[in-house]
């Protein structure tokens, strides 16, 4: 693969409700920060890919509504309706095509403006699944049940993820829910859909993120600290939940393998210094850790118990606080990439892990991690 780098990142603070900003205002803030970070002006950008979802934005061709804020006037702009990791993947392929040199990627959503359960219900088949009222929480509860039952994962182990990530969020000024919690607090929180309780679930969030991708020449010209894209992998599972084995995440295993092969990684647990992964629910961090090969199948619970995924552990996961502490849908995966970039640069402030050479960022799309995208970033 030609060398491509991330040379700028910017994000808004993630909050429950940003009353004074429209979604395009949020995008403008993130884009301005990313350009400043890259020491670029909008003139240096030759194309834009936005991450927009018409349902979350409440209008069709929502991408066009963030054109001004993304500096797209008189430029080539395209859109991905999905998680930010997939938006960035499209941006990367545009650079690799040789047609573009500097791509601005944006992603945003305002969870506060709609009824989340109705929007996530709308991702399902309208004839056979939607009438049952299935949404992100209830479908994930079904997956959690399958996974926990098959591998003997306990509710306590899931709760430990929530405790860790909310504690990590205390070091992240952009996160929404920094909290000191105990395992007991999580276990005693309101039951939503068994086995998922309120504190096992990510919050409703408003937020935006932007990153700038550049080819080698542009990266060297503009950036003193480019973060190189060493590998990317992406794979999708079946759409119908009933066609899948929900206790497994085969599409993640495949996406991770592709990304590791590209990056020349043989032992991910040893060779990756920090991981930002998409923990929409606490059980997901355990399940995705297994899919990413950080531990054996069914050992995700033991991994969190061992303390290795804590800030001071050998494989810190989600020092930012993860999605459990702030979950702006669509933006969330791009935020994982931006956080991994900060870690590789050594610029993550109080949440910095020492001596990061290789970082991993992960995003999901579709119900119960239907598709996964894995990024390996390095110095």
């Amino acid at each position, binding site marked *: 693969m030609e060398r491509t780098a991330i040379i700028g990142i910017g994000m808004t603070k993630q909050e429950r409700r940003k009353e004074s900003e429209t979604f395009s205002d949020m995008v403008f803030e993130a884009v301005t920060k990313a350009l400043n970070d890259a020491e670029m002006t909008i003139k240096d950008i030759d194309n834009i890919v936005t991450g927009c979802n018409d349902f979350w934005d409440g209008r069709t061709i929502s991408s066009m509504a963030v054109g001004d804020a993304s500096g797209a006037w008189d430029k080539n702009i395209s859109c991905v309706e999905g998680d930010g990791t997939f938006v960035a993947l499209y941006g990367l392929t545009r650079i690799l095509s040789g047609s573009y040199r500097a791509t601005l990627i944006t992603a945003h959503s305002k969870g506060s403006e709609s009824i989340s359960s109705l929007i996530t219900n709308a991702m399902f088949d309208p004839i*056979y699944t939607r*009438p049952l009222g299935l949404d992100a929480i209830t479908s994930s509860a079904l997956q959690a049940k399958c996974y926990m039952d098959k591998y003997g994962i306990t509710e306590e182990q899931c709760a430990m993820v929530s405790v860790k990530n909310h504690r990590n969020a205390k070091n992240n000024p952009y996160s929404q829910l920094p909290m000191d919690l105990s395992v007991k607090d999580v276990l005693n929180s309101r039951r939503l859909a068994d*086995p998922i309780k309120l504190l096992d679930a990510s919050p409703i969030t408003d937020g935006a993120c932007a990153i700038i991708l550049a080819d080698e020449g542009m990266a060297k010209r503009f950036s003193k600290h480019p973060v190189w894209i060493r590998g990317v992998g992406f794979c999708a599972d*079946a759409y119908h939940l*009933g066609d899948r084995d929900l206790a497994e995440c085969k599409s993640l295993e495949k996406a991770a393998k592709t990304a590791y092969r590209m990056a020349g990684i043989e032992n991910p647990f040893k060779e990756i210094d920090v991981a930002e992964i998409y923990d929409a629910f606490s059980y997901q961090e355990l399940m995705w850790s297994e899919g990413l090969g950080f531990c054996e199948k069914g050992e995700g619970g033991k991994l969190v118990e061992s303390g290795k995924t804590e800030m001071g552990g050998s494989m810190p996961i989600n020092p930012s606080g993860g999605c459990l502490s702030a979950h702006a849908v669509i933006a969330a995966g791009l935020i994982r990439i931006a956080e991994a970039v900060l870690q590789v640069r050594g610029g993550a402030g109080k949440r910095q892990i020492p001596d990061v050479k290789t970082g991993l960022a992960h995003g999901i799309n579709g119900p119960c991690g239907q598709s996964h995208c894995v990024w390996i970033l390095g110095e």
Partner: protein
Amino acid sequence: MSEKEMELLTKGSGEAEQPFRYSVGRWGSKFLIELRDHKKLLGIRCPKCQKVYVPPRQVCSPCFQRMEELVELSDKGTLMAFTIIRFSFIDPETGITRPVPYGYGFIKLDGCDNSFQHFINIEDESKVKIGARVQAVFSEERKGNLMDIKYFEMIDD
């Protein structure tokens, strides 16, 4: 004027909806009509891998193969996964909050290779377990939609 003092407005989306009339399609119509008229569940078999899917659809995804052979399935099956919903939720069909708690399950019908999603009867929660045997309970008045099955109930079998 500081941000805190400033009055900030919002605008509702209005009362008009975006109504759709989704085509159920050839295979879906056969499935729902059989359910309505004969209380029978139909699956469809892939000619290549022999897997049977419910509800019937055109394409076997792993084989990328057109399917045409309908097969009758049992109304009994095995509970593969379930959850009990305890938070109040707006019913997308009616717009009214549905009373909680209630149960969803993934049911692998006998003779079928994938799982079917529906409500499960959770009256006796102690019997609701992965691997439990279940049977469909049909609605008295059936209209050719998914709710022609009321729910699946736990059976001793």
